[in-house]
């Protein structure tokens, strides 16, 4: 087993697997009894203007995630993901996509 895989496995077991049941899968939306499953965006989220210009490093992304996750069981995980990112080399991609599952990860 490679050391990278060890690091990833350890991280998952320590930081992500224990979150099961503690975080919502998706952002809160309407329930089945409300007549519609559409989530209506608040006015300020409807038009893109800043284009995440402040996100230039993994640390920036980690900080943005922690801001998003403040007050939830995910709080603090953003900085840890950014730190882990620093240990992972950009993978050699074969360029093929999965045959069996939509590429969503």
């Amino acid at each position, binding site marked *: 087993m490679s050391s*990278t*895989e060890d690091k*990833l*496995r350890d991280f*998952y*077991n320590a930081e*992500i*697997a224990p*979150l*099961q*049941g*503690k*975080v919502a*899968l*998706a952002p809160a*939306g309407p329930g089945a009894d409300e*007549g*519609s*499953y*559409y*989530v*209506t*965006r608040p006015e300020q989220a*409807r*038009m*893109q*203007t800043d*284009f*995440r*210009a402040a*996100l*230039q*490093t993994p640390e920036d*992304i980690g900080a*943005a*995630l922690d801001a*998003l*996750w403040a007050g939830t069981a*995910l709080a603090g*995980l953003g900085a840890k*993901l*950014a730190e*882990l*990112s620093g240990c*992972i*080399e*950009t*993978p050699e*991609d074969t*360029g*093929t*996509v*999965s*045959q*069996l*599952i*939509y*590429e*969503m*990860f």
Partner: protein
Amino acid sequence: MSEPVTILGLSALYHDSAAALVRDGQIVAAAQEERFSRVKHDRRFPVNAINYCLEAGMVEPDELTAVVFYDDPVLTTDRIVRTLAHSGDKGLAQWLKSAPGLLGAKMRVPQLVAAELGANLPVLFTEHHQSHAASAFFPSPFDDAAILTIDGVGEWATTTLGHGSGNQLQIEQDIHFPHSLGLLYSAFTVFTGFKVNSGEYKLMGLAPYGQPIYAGVIRDNLIDIRPDGSFRLNLDYFGYLDGEGMTNERFAALFGGPPRQAESRITQREMDMAASIQQVTEEAVMAMARHLKTRTGAANLCMAGGVALNCVANGKLLASGLFDNIWVQPAAGDAGGALGAALLVAHHRHDAPRAAAAPGRDRQQGSYLGPELSNEEIAAYLDFNDYPAHRVTDDERASRVAAAMAEGKVIGWCVGRMEYGPRALGARSILGDPRSAQMQSAMNLKIKFRESFRPFAPAVLRDKVADWFEMDADSPYMLMVAPVRPELRIEQSFSTAEDLRAIVNRPRSTIPAVTHVDYSARVQTVDGVDKPDYSDLIAAFDALTGCPVIVNTSFNVRGEPIVCTVQDAYRCFMRTDMDVLVLENFVLFKDEQPAFADSQNWRDEFELD
């Protein structure tokens, strides 16, 4: 004079990587990485496509105003982490598979850009569905339109409803992952033995052979569609949250057994499943469109996202008259996100005006946005290899090729800038005579080496489309399906016990090669504005035969990206039963070519799609 605002848009790292260059709000160039790398649906950072776009725009990397990536890494990471956390221990395998890409590439896009372009440029990010929405609205002919985007998944959104006006657009409502019409369709694609991301088109083509006997099962068990078109999936039947595949055993039990194995015989069950999911998809799309019409009051509709490539649903939406006009981005899948992201930054961040467009014309330039061959380059290649060819004028090319088609010859046609998007639109196409009853089967089996049931599309002169098909609208991107006119049909019926190949080979109209089993056709209308060489060819065929319709299919074999270069085109020509190859102003005949020593079997080179 102020500096031009030059934006490079990128889509990458999931599937169908691409680059697009926009200057002062006008599209300069756009191309998919797969065309250069020769890897279908290539997801790698699109170095080759970027190089092409910069060259086409005659711009150095440090002259770019900004680079924009088509997806938001914060929201995507949020979804991935929450999905894995939801799975608990079962998510470990998915994490080990996806984490290197997430942590090593998707969180480091600015670093990848700096390394590949050799310049420190501001890197911006849009939301995935905002990219789709921008790709749908900004190149459209409309000043005002409702916008509908539907795909597998972006960050959280799988469907968005919005509105565009002038050089601005807004997303107003979403449906969130894991509830996804695109993923539902993909689940059926995999279950019926086709591949995700490429087999959805096959499933749609298979649908007319079946009966929608499972539509009720789907509505009762898999998806709850509200009257306003919003929907929710029953996740008990799907495996994609845990990365275990699209469907699970409960799904299989609903449809009477395990999934079909790829390349095995297609049975009536698969045909009926295809018909059923197609019907439910159309119901959902129609309901969403009605809701959007009520909400916006717009006369026009723009669409993008992978589900917008469902031209059968698009055709029914157009025929319904719900909107006066519909425009679908031809690169509706993720590749189009590169263009949408660039346009969104140009208009929203830099307030660039939209490109000028003649009345009724769009701003997509026919989607002929890729590289083109030069006669000098072709001549050098042919001379070097001693390949016999005939140099012709534009007029001679049209008349000679039309005559060859009328004799039943199959033509490889490489003229003008390559198409942006999954469809060949007459720049990298294989062409033939639609009046031949054997043409569909012959082209599928001897030239494309693909499944015999798959239909071919007609390209028809715009001013004669209503004489041949039940539509009188522009469809330049082959994204609308319409019925062949009743008086041209040959009435028939088939039983569910019949072999698929026997049904395929039965003539269904006077243009059987482009008439699907339900008399439908995926129409491309052609006029002389965006593509005069193609229009001239069809007009010459019409003058010879009285038929202003030709067969148009993509210039490739099964599993191969559409050809890009002279070398790609010649190799594909020689590997297949094509008769004539047109490379700009050079015409090559197969029977004049030297024996072709293929260094590689294409079946080994290209994985079947």
